[in-house]
Structures are given as structure tokens and as C-alpha cells.
């Protein structure tokens, strides 16, 4: 019994200590982002890697999310005689929630995992140690460009997701289900406000911060060997995805 309690306590302390480590890591990365020398060329390379290279998967996910939302929403609204509100339903769901969250989850899987693996391999091959011994701060060189990359790319990807998804919804609602195009778009315009759009963009930016920090932290602290890197990558994706969903709830409570 006492052993069980002691193990539980040890586990709790270990988790808290890791959380503290991750917090200090994030604070140091943020601090490095605001102090020179800044690596602009590396940041631009990461914006391209995270943003441009995730476009395909984000567009595809967005298209089908919008389509299925319209397909599911239409019969439900028809039951209560409110088909006219399909446009606002699709738009608000996408702009406030699904756009930021789904695009963040997609980017976590595509770019976050790749970044963890890359940094993990650098840690394994002692490249990070070599950098430290040269007097070069690895955080500044590896974490900061990724942080900037995610902060810039995520809101853009989320916005693109929203536009493509709205188009997907339009295709199903107007072309497939025969809804009036004017009603679909007109009602959408009446109900969607600028604060919804800004809220979605803030959310996606905060998700970008979470993905960057989790991916980089896991890469920097990966264990040795192929198994160590694979574990770090899996943990990065799982932890970032869970954090996104939890933080989404917190953000929704405060922003909207």
C-alpha cells in the first residue's frame, strides 16, 4: 500500500518536473526569439517547410470537412425547418473551431513529427553538443526558427482551411442538395462577425506555439537510438494533439 502511494508520488513529481523543464525550455526559446542575433533565413525556410509543404494535406482535409459538415447539417436543420441556417452553421463551426483545430492536428502530424525526428537525430549524432561547444546556442538555431515558422504558418493554414472548407460546404449544399446559393452565402454573411475570424486566427497561432514547443522539446530531449527517436516523435504528436484540444477549450471559453 505504502509502496503504491510512494510510486504514485514519485510519478507525480517526475511528471511535474518534466512539465517544469518544458516550461523553462519554452521561456528560453521565446526569450531567444526576441533577442539578436535572429536567424531570418532559417525562419523563412521553416515557414516554407511548415506552411507551404502542409498546404496539400490541409486543403484536402478542409475540402472534405466542409463537404461532410454540409451533408450532415442539412438533414438535421431540415427536421426543424431551418435549412437556411446551413451557411452560418458551416461557417461558424469552421471558422471558430474546426479550421484552427483540424489544421493544427494535420500540421502536428506532418511537420511537428518531422521536426522532432530531425532534432532527435541531431541530438543522437551529437550535432547539438557540437553546436554548444562552438558557443552557438542550439535553441536559437533550432527552436526559434521553428517557433517563428509555426506562429506565421498556422494562422495562414487555418485561414486557407476555412476558405477551402466553405467552398466544400457550398459544393454539397448548393450543387448537390440544391440549396439556394444566395441563402447559403447571405445567411453566412449575416451571422459571421470579424471577432469570429480573429478568434479563430488567435487560436491557430496559439496552437502553432504549442506544436513548436512540444516538437522541439521532445526532439531536444529524445533518448538515444532509433527507439528513442521513434518514442520522442510519437510522444510529440500525441502530447501536442491532446494539448491542442485542451487549450482549444480554454481559448473558446475566453475568446468567444
Amino acid at each position, binding site marked *: 500500500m505504502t509502496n503504491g502511494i510512494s510510486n504514485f508520488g514519485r510519478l507525480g513529481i517526475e511528471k511535474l518536473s518534466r512539465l517544469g523543464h518544458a516550461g523553462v525550455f519554452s521561456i528560453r526559446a521565446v526569450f531567444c526569439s526576441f533577442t539578436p542575433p535572429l536567424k531570418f533565413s532559417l525562419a523563412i525556410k521553416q515557414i516554407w517547410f511548415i506552411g507551404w509543404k502542409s498546404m496539400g494535406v490541409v486543403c484536402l482535409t478542409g475540402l472534405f470537412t466542409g463537404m461532410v459538415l454540409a451533408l450532415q447539417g442539412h438533414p438535421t436543420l431540415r427536421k426543424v425547418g431551418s435549412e437556411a441556417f446551413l451557411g452560418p452553421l458551416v461557417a461558424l463551426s469552421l471558422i471558430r473551431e474546426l479550421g484552427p483545430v483540424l489544421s493544427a492536428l494535420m500540421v502536428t502530424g506532418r511537420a511537428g513529427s518531422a521536426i522532432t525526428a530531425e532534432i532527435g537525430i541531431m541530438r543522437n*549524432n*551529437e550535432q547539438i553538443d557540437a553546436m554548444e*561547444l*562552438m*558557443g552557438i546556442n542550439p535553441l536559437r538555431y533550432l527552436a526559434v526558427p521553428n517557433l517563428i515558422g509555426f506562429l506565421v504558418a498556422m494562422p495562414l493554414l487555418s485561414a486557407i482551411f476555412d476558405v477551402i472548407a466553405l467552398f466544400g460546404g457550398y459544393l454539397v449544399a448548393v450543387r448537390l442538395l440544391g440549396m439556394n446559393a444566395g441563402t447559403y452565402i447571405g445567411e453566412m454573411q449575416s451571422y459571421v462577425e470579424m471577432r469570429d475570424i480573429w478568434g479563430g486566427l488567435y487560436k491557430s497561432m496559439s496552437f502553432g506555439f504549442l506544436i513548436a514547443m512540444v516538437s522541439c522539446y521532445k526532439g531536444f530531449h529524445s533518448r538515444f537510438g532509433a527507439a528513442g527517436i521513434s518514442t520522442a516523435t510519437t510522444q510529440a504528436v500525441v502530447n501536442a494533439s491532446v494539448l491542442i484540444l485542451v487549450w482549444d477549450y480554454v481559448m473558446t471559453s475566453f475568446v468567444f
Partner: protein
Amino acid sequence: MITIDNLWKSFGSQEVLRGVSLEVKKGEFVALVGMSGSGKSLLLKHLVRLTEPDRGRVLVENSDLALISRHELQSLRSRIGYLFQNGALFDSMTVYENVAFPLREKTRLPAAVIRQKAMAQLELVGLKNATDKYPAQISGGMAKRAALARTLVQEPEVILFDEPTTGLDPIVSKSMLQLFDRIHKQLNLTGIIVTHEITGVFKIVEKVAMLYQGKIIANESPAQMQNSSDPVIRQFLTGDTEGPIQYR
């Protein structure tokens, strides 16, 4: 120059270093030998604070590495070159970019001067024709020479070599040791070399320190070491499977 004083380090219940003490004077070239897994590389990492000891001190030019600030540590590290076992080249950069990297990042030298300095080191290690190749496109020996060029371009006063000849064929291995000897003599560098290449390294170092069961059991000239009557040293040098060293 470098003083290691009663250094202890363990991982869980496994004590790897159990009171290591060693002194390396300025300009001296010391070989650190011992069984695989005896903690030689670990000891080397303590000298640049890549690892911190459980107990004991490491002093570099009378500065205790555990007590100096981050800024002082950085400045000290910039005077120490470290040649990693696998070279630790940045695989996203070419050989030239790897060698020029520390100068580009740490100095404000004009690009032409950086190029001149990097090319001079690449020529010294015989890699003038491999500048545009990536680490994955070159052999292990070339990667180690490129790493040496990257270390030398920072003009260190001390170089720590972590098994620089492991995995190389005998000819390349011998040429690497000759290169280290030439560099040590030309630049009057202080050096510690961790190696299993006993025959070759005994010709180029002034002293040999042997790490056994977590302690330095000998720190003497190669000639003294070869004439030692200590059964552990004798077994290690001859490579006999029978003797006091438990290798399983």
C-alpha cells in the same frame, strides 16, 4: 592546464567514474586508454561540461567548470576543440559549410576571409576536393578529417579527441594519427586522445593514462607503460584473454 580532481559519476546504481584524478600540462599530448565502456568518453565530456559530475572537480586553467558562469563557460569552450567519435558533422551542410559554420556564426569576418581560413584547414586535412560533398557522401575517415578541420578553424588551444580512429582501416588510421601529431607539434596544442589504437598512439603522445574500474591506474610515458609490470596494464597491452581484467 587541465586538472581532474576526484571525479565521480554514476548512472543509477552503476558507478562509472569512481574518483578519477588526472593532470594535463600545457602543450602536453596525453592518450587516455582503457577497456570499452570504462568511461573514457564520459570523462572527456566532463572536461567541457557536456556532462556534470556527481562529485569532484574539473579545472581548466584554474577555473572550476562547475562554478563558472554560462558566459565564462562559453568563452572557455571556444578555446577547446572537441572531436566527436562520429565527427558530429551537420548533415544538412556540405563539408565546406560545416568547416565555415563556426566562423560564420561566431565571428564578423568577411566572407572572403572565412573562405580562406576554411579552405586552409580543409587543405591541411586533405579534403580540398571534397568541399561540396555532404557528410552522407563521404567516407568515415573523410568525415573525421572534416570534423578535425572544423575544430581547427576555431583555433583552439586544447583539442579533445574522442576515439578519432575507431572504424577506420589501418592505413587511414595511421595517417590520422600522423596528422594529429603534426598539428600538435605545429600549433603546440594541448591534447587528450581517447583511443584503442595503442600501437600508433604510443608513438605520438607524451603520456598515457589508463582508466580501469573507474580510476586512473597509470599516468606515465608510453615507454614506462610498455615496461610496466602491473598485470592489468600488461594484459591490456597484450590483449590476453586470461588475466585480472574481467572483460565479459
